[in-house]
C-alpha cells in the first residue's frame, strides 16, 4: 500500500442515452485508518457535494415555486454552464473562478429566451404539456451539445484552485471546498435578495399567490421571466463551480437534473430553505450510503430515501 487509496477514476465514454447516469467514480479519499477518521472524511465530502446540489436545486425550486413548472432541462442548463466555463478556460485561458459572472450572464439570457419563446406559451395549457415541454428542451440542449462538442468526457486540467489541504486526518479538496463555500454564499445572497430587495419580495409574493400579487400591481409576467432567468443563472454559477473538478460531458445534466428534482420535491414546493436543507441532506445520504453499502447503489439509495420521505410527507420537508 504505497499510496493509500488513491484510486484513479475510470471513465468510459458512452454514447448518448447509454449510461450518462451511471455513477461516476468520486475522486479518491483515503481508505484505511481508524473508522472515525474515515467517517469524518465522509462527512466532509457529504457537505461539499451537498452544498453544490443545494445551489442547483435552489435554482430549480425558484422556478417551480413561482411558476409551478418543473424545468426538466435544469440539468442541461448546468451542462451548458459547465461547457461555457470549459471553453472560456480552453480557448482564452480564463480560470473557472473568473468565468462565474460569464456563466451566470449567459445562462440568465438563455433562461430568459427559453421562458419567452417556449415555457410562457404552455403556461396556460394542460399540465401535461407543461411537464413535457421542458423534456423537449432537455433533449434538444443535450444533443445540441453532442453535435457541437461530441459526447466526450472533458476535464479542466489545471484550474487555479487545485490540490488538497490536510486538516488532521481529513483531506480537503480545495476546488471542492471553494465550490461549496461559493454555493453557500450564492444561496445566501439569493435568500437575502428575496427577503430584502423590492424585486425579491415581488417574486415571493407571486410565489405565495399569483392573483393577489397581480391585484397589488406586480407585473407577474415580468416576475416569471425574471425568476426563470435567475434560476438559470444560479445553475450556471453551479456549473462554473462544478467544472473545476467534475467531468464535463453533454449528458452530465441527466444525473444532476434527476437528483435536483428529488431535492426540490424533498425540500418542498418552492421552498428555498427546504431545497438548501434537502440538498445538504441528499449529499449526506449519497456519500454515506455509498460508503456503508455499495458505491454503485448510492444514487439508488438517494432515490429510495426520497420515496420514503414523500411517503410520510407528501409535500416534502418544508412543504405547505
Amino acid at each position, binding site marked *: 500500500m504505497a499510496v493509500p487509496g488513491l484510486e484513479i477514476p475510470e471513465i468510459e465514454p458512452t454514447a448518448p442515452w447509454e449510461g450518462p447516469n451511471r455513477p461516476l467514480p468520486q475522486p479518491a479519499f483515503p481508505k484505511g485508518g481508524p473508522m472515525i477518521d474515515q467517517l469524518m472524511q465522509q462527512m466532509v465530502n457529504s457537505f461539499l457535494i451537498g452544498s453544490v446540489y443545494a445551489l442547483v436545486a435552489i435554482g430549480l425550486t425558484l422556478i417551480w415555486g413561482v411558476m409551478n413548472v418543473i424545468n426538466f432541462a435544469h440539468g442541461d442548463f448546468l451542462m451548458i454552464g459547465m461547457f461555457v466555463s470549459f471553453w472560456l478556460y480552453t480557448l482564452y485561458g480564463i480560470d473557472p473562478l473568473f468565468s462565474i459572472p460569464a456563466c451566470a450572464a449567459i445562462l440568465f439570457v438563455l433562461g430568459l429566451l427559453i421562458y419567452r419563446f417556449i415555457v410562457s406559451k404552455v403556461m396556460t*395549457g394542460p399540465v*401535461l404539456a407543461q411537464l413535457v415541454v421542458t423534456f423537449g428542451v432537455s433533449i434538444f440542449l443535450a444533443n445540441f451539445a453532442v453535435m457541437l462538442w461530441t459526447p466526450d468526457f472533458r476535464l479542466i486540467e489545471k484550474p487555479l484552485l487545485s490540490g488538497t489541504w490536510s486538516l488532521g486526518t481529513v483531506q480537503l479538496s480545495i476546488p471542492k471546498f471553494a465550490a461549496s463555500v461559493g454555493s453557500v454564499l450564492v444561496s445566501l445572497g439569493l435568500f437575502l435578495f428575496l427577503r430584502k430587495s423590492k424585486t425579491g419580495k415581488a417574486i415571493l409574493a407571486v410565489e405565495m399567490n399569483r392573483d393577489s400579487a397581480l391585484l397589488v400591481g406586480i407585473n407577474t409576467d415580468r416576475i416569471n421571466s425574471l425568476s426563470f432567468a435567475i434560476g438559470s443563472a444560479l445553475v450556471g454559477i453551479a456549473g462554473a463551480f462544478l467544472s473545476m473538478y467534475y467531468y464535463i460531458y453533454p449528458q452530465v445534466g441527466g444525473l444532476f437534473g434527476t437528483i435536483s428534482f428529488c431535492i426540490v420535491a424533498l425540500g418542498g414546493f418552492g421552498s428555498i430553505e427546504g431545497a438548501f436543507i434537502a440538498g445538504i441532506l441528499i449529499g449526506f445520504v449519497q456519500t454515506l450510503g455509498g460508503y456503508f453499502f455499495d458505491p454503485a447503489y448510492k444514487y439508488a439509495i438517494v432515490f429510495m430515501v426520497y420515496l420514503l420521505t414523500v*411517503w410520510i410527507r407528501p409535500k416534502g420537508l418544508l412543504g405547505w
Partner: protein
Amino acid sequence: MHVMIMLFMFGMMGVAWNIMGGYAGMFSFGQVAFFGIGAYTSSYLVTAHQVNPWIGLFIGGILAAVTAAAIGIPCSNLRGHYFAIASIAFGEIIRIHFNNWKLIGAAEGLTLPMLPESFTSFMFHSSKAPYYYIILGFLIFSLIVCYLVSTSKMGFYFRAIKESHDVAKVLGINFVHYRLMAIMISAFLTAMAGTFYAQYILYLDPESVLILPISVQVVLVAMLGGAGSVIGPVIGAAVLIPVSEFTRVLLGHKGTGIDMMIYGALIMLISVYQPKGVWGLLSSIGRRAK
C-alpha cells in the same frame, strides 16, 4: 415493418399509460420500469429455466403489477408534479439495480437463446410478420381493456379522482384502492409490451430498455394523441414513431445527435401548438361541425 411494429408497441404502452395518466391523472414518467420488468422476467425465465415466454409474459405482467402496487402505496398521496418526480426516481432505482444485479447479467445484459421458430416459443427468424400480428393483437387487447375500464364504474371513479382528489374522497371513493388499480393495470400491459420487445430484439441491457427517454416517449405518444381518450395514444404513436424512426435512420448514424435535436424540437412544438393532442383537435373540429 419495423416501424409498424414499434408503432404498435409504443401505441400499446401509450394506451397503458393512458389508463393511469389520462384517466386517473397520475402522470407517470417511470413506465420504463414496468417495461423492463416485463422484458427481464420473461427473458430470465427463458434463459435460466427454459420457461415458455408466453408463461413468462404472464409472470412478468403479474410481477410488474405487484411492483406497481408496492410503489403505488407510498406514492398514493402524491399529486401532480410530486408523482411525476417520484415515478422518475422509481424508474432510476430499477435501472441502477438492474445495472448491478449479477443474476440478470448486470450491465452486460441478457441475450436470449435461439429457439426453433414457432408460435409457442415466441420466436420467428425468417420474417417479421408474426411479430407484427402478435403486437397488433396485444394492441387490440390493450384497447379493449382500456375501453372496458373507461366505460366501467371504475373508469368514472378514475376520472373523478383526476378531476379532484378531495371531492372524490368526500364522495366516498376509495381513493388509494382505485389509484392502485389504475397503476396495476397499466403496469401489466406495459410489461406485456416489455416481453414482446425482448422476444423481438432478443437482447436486453439496462441502458437500452430502462432509460428515461423511453418513458418520455410513452408519455409523448399518449399526449400527442390526446390523453384520456381510448384511441388517442394509437394516433399519437402513428404520428410520432414514424417521425422519430425516420430521423434516426436518416440522420442518426453519424452519432451527431441531430436526430435527437429534431426530436426534442418536435416535442417543444407539440407542447406549444398542440397540447391537447391530435384527438383533441379532431374532436373540437367535430364539435364545431355539429
